[in-house]
């Protein structure tokens, strides 16, 4: 993909603007891993390992192909994030664990070993995150990387799509340590804003999280759940959803039902993919570059 197709969000003063095809975006590419402020990471989302159905007859190999494509990137990312729905849900607790074990075995082939996981509702909502924690660790946490503070929020372990007061208190306490100008990236599964409540594309108490984040000038959210690229601003906070690796879903609210877009045998993996995010901590800008599952 041409780097001119980057979508970049630049914080300007108290607001933020979307800029597509920013001149100079190529300079954001993660080619200089020694710089203290520039780096890039890869976001993969909504793998639904274990899904069997007509909407992706290649489900058993799609993840493996994506792993190979990531491994073939010219410059490897600093780290990789999976923003939830690693597995397709099942009532069978043993089967859920088997799917998580298989998923871990496949992604262990990634060259980059710094991999961050978070749950989606398919992973965590039926057992409040128990199996996920056994296999992947905490469902919410923070980490710092080259000047950017990353916050992983869990809005799925509660089957009612709530972050919950306890985690919100934890979030507020974590952010209280930061300068209001600190670059902050939130990684989560569901949209924190009401994107399409009639399709369950929301977080019930997401507004409370955004209220806590709002005083910080440089906040960007990367999430999954909706199986497509989508960009939105709530005030100065930018929200970017990622494509999935299983099947695409229709544009938010565009039809009565959120039924998957049908598999196109003439164009396998159409609408699927992953992205790299080129971060510049000094300017709090993030260039997004989308990739197909299989490199053309």
């Amino acid at each position, binding site marked *: 993909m041409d780097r001119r197709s980057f979508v970049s969000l630049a914080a300007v003063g108290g607001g933020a603007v979307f800029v597509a095809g920013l001149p100079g975006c190529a300079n954001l590419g993660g080619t200089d891993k020694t710089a203290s402020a520039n780096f890039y990471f890869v976001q993969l989302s909504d793998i639904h390992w274990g899904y069997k159905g007509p909407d992706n007859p290649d489900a058993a190999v799609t993840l493996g192909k994506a792993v190979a494509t990531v491994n073939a990137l010219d410059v490897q990312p600093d780290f990789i994030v999976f923003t939830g729905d690693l597995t397709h*849900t099942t009532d069978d607790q043993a089967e859920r664990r088997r799917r998580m074990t298989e998923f871990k075995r496949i992604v262990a082939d990634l060259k980059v070993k710094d991999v961050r996981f978070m749950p989606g509702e398919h992973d965590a909502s039926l057992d409040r995150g128990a199996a996920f924690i056994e296999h992947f660790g905490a469902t919410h946490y923070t980490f710092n990387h080259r000047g950017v503070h990353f916050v992983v929020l869990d809005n799925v372990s509660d089957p009612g799509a709530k972050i919950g007061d306890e985690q919100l208190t934890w979030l507020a306490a974590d952010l209280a340590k930061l300068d209001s100008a600190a670059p902050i990236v939130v990684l989560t599964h569901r949209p924190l804003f009401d994107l399409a409540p009639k399709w369950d594309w929301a977080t019930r108490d997401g507004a409370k999280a955004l209220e806590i984040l709002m005083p910080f000038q440089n906040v960007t959210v990367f999430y999954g759940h909706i199986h497509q690229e989508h960009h939105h601003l709530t005030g100065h906070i930018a929200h970017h959803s990622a494509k999935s690796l299983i099947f695409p879903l229709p544009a938010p609210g565009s039809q*009565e039902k959120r039924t998957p877009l049908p598999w196109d045998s003439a164009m396998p993996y159409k609408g699927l993919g992953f992205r790299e995010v080129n971060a510049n901590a000094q300017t709090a800008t993030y260039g997004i570059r989308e990739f197909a599952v299989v490199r053309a």
Partner: protein
Amino acid sequence: MSSLSRRAALQRFGAMIVAAGTTGLVAKGPRAQQQAGRIIEIEARRFRYTPNEIVVKRGEVVTLAFRALDFPHGFSLPDLNIRADLIPGQVVPVRIQPMHSGRFAFLCDNFCGEHHEEMSGTLIVET
């Protein structure tokens, strides 16, 4: 939708909403029955509401009486800013009075399993 725009939507639809409690029978006695209006019983089970199409008249007071059979399903009617948790073993009454005609989607918003995404229905408000 922001809370502000939700409020605006609520005002636009002019819905009167009362979740009338979570236990027992709906609308005991004549006065309570008058307040509850017409009662429509709805069964919620994985992954379907029965009925999943509810037809009411604009301005009509209706109580939706939910019985969840197998899971604490949710009932969410975002356009009218209504939601409720449907506790198995209880009748959960939700009183509505939609003031605008149209088709309004409702859904289960408590993740209930593999076909959770299919558990939805439509409120049809006729003039």
